């Protein structure tokens, strides 16, 4: 009997070990570090709230938090819109399974190259002397190149949407594909309009996918420091990029305190999402 009761523990052991080694330990180090002191070159072990005081009392942190949330919200909205629409088209309008799979794979083609390449490729396209501006100019639609296209918040959000839409689309597609078509047929037979079907059947039944996709997108955007730096030309910042700045200047404890702050800030929307949708129960369905 004791052997039998040991089995489940052994079964979870590998994952538990990985989680402890790669999540719990680094997190503990991070939290510890956030209480230490630094003079910009060496670290002094301490238990001081100075770093948190500095982070929480400075107006810049809150401004950066607002910027981080703004980017997350706007990106979330557009990825959801595009991801949902594409999934909807693939699941309900493409009847042929092979074609459906082919089209789905087509969506993943950009992922054959790295994130960095996909991001950087916007630069020559959107630049002052870039393809898009040249095209508009040669069509006579503008006299001066549009500068807001590159090194701006517009460019940052465009890139986020480009990079992360698939993370929204895949879970939604997955949930949608599980919807039993006869449910929809029954609703239509009972006189439901297209809009009612969408609102009362499809959206509720795909909410797990929407929730999962939202978690992906929100965490990716809130944790990014690279896209925002390159695509805004270093002119916009979020919490992660300010953290990166601190790390570059060797102020590790300040960065650690900011990281703890960011973790809390990221957890809040995720908790909210999980409260609305019980992902575990839905996945087990």
């Amino acid at each position, binding site marked *: 009997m004791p052997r039998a009761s040991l089995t489940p523990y052994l079964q979870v052991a590998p994952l538990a070990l990985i989680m402890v080694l790669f999540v719990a330990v680094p997190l503990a180090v991070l939290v510890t570090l956030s209480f230490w002191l630094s*003079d*910009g*070159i*060496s670290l002094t072990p301490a238990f001081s709230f100075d770093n948190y005081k*500095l982070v929480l009392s*400075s107006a*810049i942190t809150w*401004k*950066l938090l607002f*910027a981080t949330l703004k980017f997350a919200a706007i990106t979330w909205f557009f990825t959801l819109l595009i991801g949902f629409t594409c999934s909807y088209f693939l699941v309900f309008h493409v009847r042929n399974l092979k074609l459906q799979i082919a089209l789905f794979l087509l969506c993943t083609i950009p992922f054959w190259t790295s994130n960095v390449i996909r991001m950087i490729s916007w*630069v*020559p396209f959107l*630049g*002052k*002397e*870039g393809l898009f501006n040249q095209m508009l100019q040669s069509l006579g639609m503008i006299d001066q190149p549009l*500068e807001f296209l*590159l*090194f701006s918040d517009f460019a940052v959000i465009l890139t986020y949407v480009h990079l992360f839409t698939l993370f929204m689309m895949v879970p939604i597609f997955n949930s949608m594909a599980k919807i039993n078509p006869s449910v929809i047929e029954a609703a239509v037979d009972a006189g439901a309009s297209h809009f009612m079907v969408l609102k009362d059947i499809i959206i509720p039944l795909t909410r797990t996918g929407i929730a999962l996709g939202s978690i992906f997108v929100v965490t990716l955007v809130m944790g990014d420091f690279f896209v925002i*730096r*390159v695509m*805004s*030309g*270093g*002119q*916009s*910042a979020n919490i992660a*990029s*300010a953290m990166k*700045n*601190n790390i*570059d*200047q*060797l*102020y590790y404890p300040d960065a650690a305190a900011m990281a703890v702050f960011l973790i809390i800030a990221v957890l809040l929307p995720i908790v909210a999402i999980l409260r609305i949708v019980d992902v575990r129960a839905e996945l087990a369905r």
Partner: protein
Amino acid sequence: MKTNRKRVNGVSRRSFLKGAAAAGGAALGGGAVTGFPTVWAQNLKDVTILQVGPAYSVFQDIANQAAKDLGFKIEIQNAWTDALMTRVINQPETVDIADLEFWAMQKVWPSGKLQNIDTKKIASWDKIEPIFREGKYSNGNAVSSQGTLPFEVLYVDSPDAKGFAGKRTEMATCSPTIYNADTLGIRPDLIGRKIENWSELLNPEFKGKASILNVPQIGIMDAAMAIESRGDIKYGDKGNMTKEEIDKTIEILMAAKKDGQFRAFWSTFDESVNFMTAGEVVIQSMWSPAVTAVRTRGVACSYQPLKEGYRGWGVGMALASHLDGLKRDAAYEYLNWYLSGWQGAFIAKQGYYNMVQDTTKAALSKEEWDYWYEGKPASVEIKDPFGNLMEKPGAVRDGGSYAERTGNFACWNTVMDEDKYLVQRWNEFVAS
């Protein structure tokens, strides 16, 4: 120790090195002077020196050539100054020789993780550029001490001193290697008029076409040069601003950013090259090799000399405290080799200067010397360090001759006392 002294006394380092360059094996033979030829020779081959430093200073090509000339192995690793500083302080055993910028020395030396250099063992010490060796121009005039004047952190009074001597002694914190004078890079073809002052960086004429680098300590100095030139603030010491001066500077920068003065801020070398090449930016802070890179792409770009002067910087090779015995001897060989010509010629072709001019002159061709140091029009094709074509005959180096470029340092790369405050305010500026 005994062998060290004997070797140094017994051999003229420069003539020895010249011989060494001719044949790697000869370097081993050079040890014969010490009286321990075989032991010295056999062991030396097994020595490996690990040199760590930034990519603009530590090159595989240089290490390869030195290994060939000296007969022992030299491994290199690239690390930016900030990463290198932490490494020397926290894991000194992972570095043998650190290529540190002088301002970094300010932070690193007091940690006690470096050993001093015996200047008597550096054969060409007295030929090192006087700006660094003496803190004076060769004509005897004092050099601006705004920021970290290298001379101030070059010497110490005793091996375990925490502070710097500020005067010449025989114990140095590092062996100076390369330096340069930084200024603004411009696109003369897109600007179409003369640029003579730092204030042009903030000139509304270049609205949306200017950029500065996103490294707080250096970015603020470039900004300060521009602001002072425009006449807004007269700094007590641009290289060590008070909190009020930082506040005022950041305010002016924020206002400029709000008005759309800056097209972007760059953080990496290639960003600065791409901004210029693509015409996104026509005036910005820049590094000399970046200007070289823009030009090798066939785009007009000049490293514009400005009336207020240059922002200077320099690098020295520092020895980690764990080096001793044969390995230290080998390290000294390498330090001496660095000042013996080959490295000087290599680095000159990316626009930098080696600390010792004579040997560099001997290693460059007459035409190259005239172009890089004399500021004369190129009489042959000018190649970069890797042999790529850079300039056609007739081109002239920006800023002219060596004397013109290095005769006017306005300030030096540095870390300020209010560094932490500066980084915080800079973050604010970037996010504004």
